[in-house]
């Protein structure tokens, strides 16, 4: 078996006195879709943010596409060329059109020429079904469209792994559906993905690996089947409460 694209080993992280990650370990291999589930405050988002070095870890090891993320001398730009991340709040740049949002990094980070960047942007916009919104400003789009534009912006950098941090939590069910379809297409295309999600049905359907986090640890992990047949009372209770939601 080849090396995992993302590996966390015994990762610890505290915010002041609050222990958020208490020895988190998991591997995500090429082409896998890992779903991080669990209650709010269980450490899922923090774990995800540590992978892209948005947070520094206190101890343990994280390797992403061969980069030692815990190394203080890590070349952040190199890491971020390999990792794409999409946030709950979209974080599109409000003063730029959708097209300009997408072209910014390819042009200023990768040094692409204008024509090349335009082609690239049109390609990713078509992928997320927003070809007709290229010249719109973010505020002119619905939440679902903004989130798809944000996915397109990440895709334009051709990352090796995509991180999704509760990307549908701010959306109503219909808009959630259109965003999830895009993520589904990406999975079908073989993209390695780690997603923090509260969409249990979607996680069950798309994930190759489900990681249930509880109290800063991976409490239970395995194929989506563990959600139907939990081994721990904590996961059983969590899945039950999510179903009742």
């Amino acid at each position, binding site marked *: 078996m080849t090396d995992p694209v993302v590996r966390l080993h015994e990762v610890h992280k505290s915010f002041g006195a609050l222990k958020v990650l208490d020895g988190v370990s998991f591997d995500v291999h090429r082409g896998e879709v890992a779903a991080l589930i669990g209650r709010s405050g269980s450490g899922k988002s923090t774990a995800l943010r540590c992978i*892209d070095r*948005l947070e520094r870890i206190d101890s343990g090891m994280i390797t992403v596409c061969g980069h030692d993320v815990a190394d203080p001398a890590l070349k*952040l*730009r190199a890491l*971020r*060329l390999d*990792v*794409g*991340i999409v*946030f709950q*709040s979209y*974080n*599109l*740049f*409000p*003063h*730029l059109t959708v097209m300009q949002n997408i072209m*910014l*990094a390819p042009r*200023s*980070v990768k040094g692409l020429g204008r024509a090349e960047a335009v082609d690239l942007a049109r390609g990713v916009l078509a992928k997320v079904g927003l070809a007709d919104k290229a010249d719109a*400003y973010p*505020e*002119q789009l619905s939440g679902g469209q903004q989130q798809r534009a*944000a996915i397109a*912006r*990440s895709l334009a*950098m051709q990352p090796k792994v995509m991180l999704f941090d509760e990307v549908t939590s701010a959306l109503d069910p219909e808009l959630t559906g259109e965003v999830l379809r895009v993520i589904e297409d990406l999975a079908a295309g073989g993209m390695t993905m780690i997603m923090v999600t509260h969409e249990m049905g979607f996680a069950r359907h798309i994930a190759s690996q489900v990681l249930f986090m509880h109290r800063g640890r991976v409490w239970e992990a395995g194929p989506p089947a563990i959600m139907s047949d939990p081994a721990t009372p904590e996961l059983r209770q969590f899945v039950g409460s999510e179903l009742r939601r």
Partner: protein
Amino acid sequence: MELDFTTVLSRWPMLRDGALLTLELALIATTIGFAIGVACAVGRRGSVRWIAAACGFYVEAVRNTPFLVQIFLVYFGLSSLGLSLPAFTVALVALSINVGAYATEIMRAGFDAIPRGQIEAGECLGLSRLQVYWHVILLPAVERVYPSLTSQFVLLMLASSVTSQISTEELTAAANFIQSDTYRAFETYIVVAVFYVALSLLMRAGFWALGGAVFPRRRRLGTVI
């Protein structure tokens, strides 16, 4: 009381030249001051402690001393260094230093108003710190504080009247000369006040047009960022 404007208005070329010099001072100092403001706001927010402290010291030093004193400090400071510069240059330096400090505080507020997520998104796309400032933060920050910023620049134009004290031949200096020559002090300053109002309106109109060019989003949608 009888007002007689004809004597004052007969000095029209002098008033015109003074007004043009005032405008010139204001526009150049605005440009320099804006650059200082952006640079020092970035410095103040940065992680290099001594730069942040130096920028903070500069801002407080300027904001807590009268402008007239600042002008004299620049004027006598430069001459004690053996630099005898024309009054216009001295006035320009003093005005730029002054407005730069206020612009720093305004830009700092603008930068602080940018949501953290915007910066993270930029960094996660691989942009460097400076690229994030340049492409992600600067324009929305300026757009947010544009009204305060432009008011400050209009105030700067009005404050340039104080530079008449070091005999810069701007509008107020022209007025001082005309009133002592014609003994029509009240009329002179009425005329000069009208000139200042016109210059202010001109600057505001200019900033409005500039805003349209620099903020295409606002021009198209008309909404607040």
